[in-house]
């Protein structure tokens, strides 16, 4: 188990390294740069100077190494530090026992090239929590609706409950956020006036986007839970449990459910990842001030540090989610070998 964990974590960093290289290369292959848009009419010499200030005149390899170095390498300094555009760390831990201003500083994602006076870390700390909240809220919606619906459908198989539930599920799968969004907005915000159509932070603005994003995934979860539980109910150990005289409730609660949730747990990682990236669409429709807006504009503006930072951070979440799922999977099902 120990070796398995170590291997999984090492693999995580290899993947992140490859992702960072591909993103960097792809991003720099896009013609144009952050400072040469013609409509603002920046003189050639000025543009060169600005680019030099941000190190964009250096060879690409040096730029890449500096960028990654700033993120990966932690710094322990005892200098008085003032947050600046080029020096802004995501993680700052004071070390009072080493000196008055000594601190452990880590993860400098660099400045934003287009949102002057803001660093990528500021964008992260301001907007990322909102995207995360939305993703988590949607995941809660998906699980709270999907798993119970799947269990009920499986236990009442081939009854009207099952047919209705699965009918709703298949319809739900066909509704992406861009359809669900306007319909929910119109029905509940414009027509009934229960919620507000756009915004974020209060309950009456958070429910609609969470539901719009989570509903399609809840349908997937319901179908998966149902299929898995039905399969488990045919296993020999369920027959054994019944044979030894356990009540149906005990059989389902203690024998069937735990095993049937294994496949469900394995999709939770990719599910959260899908929801997290899915927040981009939802944010646009519901006017949620998350990361989505920044990413699209940063790509169009060639704001390199923002593009890199966002993709790396999301890739990290994806890889972490998948790794955790792998570990939970191995832990839940003893038949899985660790190598």
């Amino acid at each position, binding site marked *: 188990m120990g070796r398995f964990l170590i291997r999984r974590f090492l693999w995580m960093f290899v993947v992140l390294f490859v*992702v960072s290289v591909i993103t960097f290369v792809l991003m720099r292959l896009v013609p*144009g740069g952050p400072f040469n848009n013609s409509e603002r009419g920046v003189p050639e010499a000025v543009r060169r100077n600005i680019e030099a200030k941000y190190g964009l005149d250096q060879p690409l390899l040096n730029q890449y190494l500096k960028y990654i170095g700033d993120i990966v390498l932690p710094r322990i300094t005892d200098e008085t530090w003032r947050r600046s555009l080029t020096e802004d760390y995501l993680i700052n831990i004071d070390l009072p026992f080493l000196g008055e201003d000594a601190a452990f500083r880590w993860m400098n994602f660099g400045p934003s090239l287009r949102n002057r006076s803001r660093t990528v870390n500021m964008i992260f700390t301001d907007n990322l929590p909102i995207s995360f909240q939305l993703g988590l809220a949607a995941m809660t919606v998906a699980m709270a609706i999907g798993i119970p619906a799947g269990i009920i459908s499986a236990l009442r198989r081939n009854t009207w409950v099952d047919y209705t539930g699965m009918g709703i599920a298949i319809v739900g799968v066909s509704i992406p956020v861009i359809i669900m969004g*306007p319909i929910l*907005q119109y029905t509940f915000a414009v027509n009934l006036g229960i919620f507000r159509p756009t915004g974020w932070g209060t309950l009456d603005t958070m429910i609609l986007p969470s539901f719009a994003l989570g509903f399609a995934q809840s349908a997937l979860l319901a179908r998966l839970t149902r299929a898995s539980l039905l399969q488990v109910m045919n296993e020999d150990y369920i027959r054994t449990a019944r044979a030894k005289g356990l009540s149906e409730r005990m059989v389902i609660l203690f024998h069937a459910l735990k095993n049937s949730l294994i496949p469900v747990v394995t999709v939770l990682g990719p599910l959260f990842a899908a929801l997290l990236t899915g927040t981009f669409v939802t944010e646009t429709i519901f006017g949620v001030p998350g990361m989505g807006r920044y990413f699209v504009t940063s*790509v169009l503006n060639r704001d390199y540090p923002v593009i890199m930072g966002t993709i790396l951070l999301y890739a990290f979440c994806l890889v972490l989610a998948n790794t955790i799922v792998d570990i939970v999977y191995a832990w839940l099902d003893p038949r899985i070998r660790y190598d």
Partner: protein
Amino acid sequence: MAVAHNQDANTTPSNIAKLKTPHKGTSLWADAWRRLRRNRLAIIGAIIILINILMAIFAPQLAPKYYATQVLVDNDTAPYWVTRVFPSMVTVEEGGYVRINNDYLLGADNLGRDLWSRIIYGSQVSLLVAFIGPLFAALIGITVGLVAGYFGGWIDNLLMRIVDTMYAFPTLLLVILLMAFFRASVAQPEPGSFAFNVAQIDQRMGGMLFVFMGIGMTSWMNLARLVRGQILSVREKEYIEAARSLGVGTRGIMFRHMLPNILGTIIIAETLTIPTYISYEAFLSFIGLGVNPPVPSWGAMISEGSSSISTYPNQAIFPAIALFLVMFAFNFLGDGLRDALDPRMRGVD
């Protein structure tokens, strides 16, 4: 106990009935077709798709107006019945703001273009994505899966690690980056160059070539894994050994013997992903990186409409319904096809 007992009671009579009927030799496809016909939802799906195909082909005849025709004085007008469906749209006569114009079946958008005509023309985009989108993904996915499964060893290892790495990419973000890359790369190409030719093709397709490429390059991984798994399972079959002993070459075995045997699985998997491709296109058009305006895409129409959802809900809701119907149809047809072609997978996701 009750559950298991019921199941026996349900299945046994039909099994007996099956045994009693004299065995008729039917091909896999005839058998599948028979099963598909019995699936009412799949047939409804197929009919919706058929109607959609007819709409796309005969769009110039069916649509009352051309999709780009603007009558600016008619902007944001709606026919009377629409204002009854959406109670928030209060007409001018009733003291509201909606101007009535019954010439437009579903209303006109903020540029005075007929919504109904744009929805009809929009079906061309979504159907092209549905049928051509998977081709790009299939081309990459099948190739990678075939090579990995057939050769095994370090090639397999390398390709599968690439697949793993691709999974780590936030797909939507990568698509956005790719689309920006494609668009900017061919922004001002020199005539005669490769980029120029690609840009010409893309222009002629209304910006769809890049949509296909972007979607294809980010959604081939599932298929690659599936094909590899299938190849691994047929690789050791006797008929492959027989073919090999008859002296069939690598390419012959791959394309003549292995691929046809796993084609059913590939078709099922791709049909089930079509809704995903459609929603990708809608999303890309939604954020303005999809098809070039004024080519109507339902995603772009929803995007334009949703900015005025509280005043003119019809501009977002009608394209949303159209998109929903098509995705719904492909989902049902895909499910039906899966059950028909591979009864073992019934009810399993």
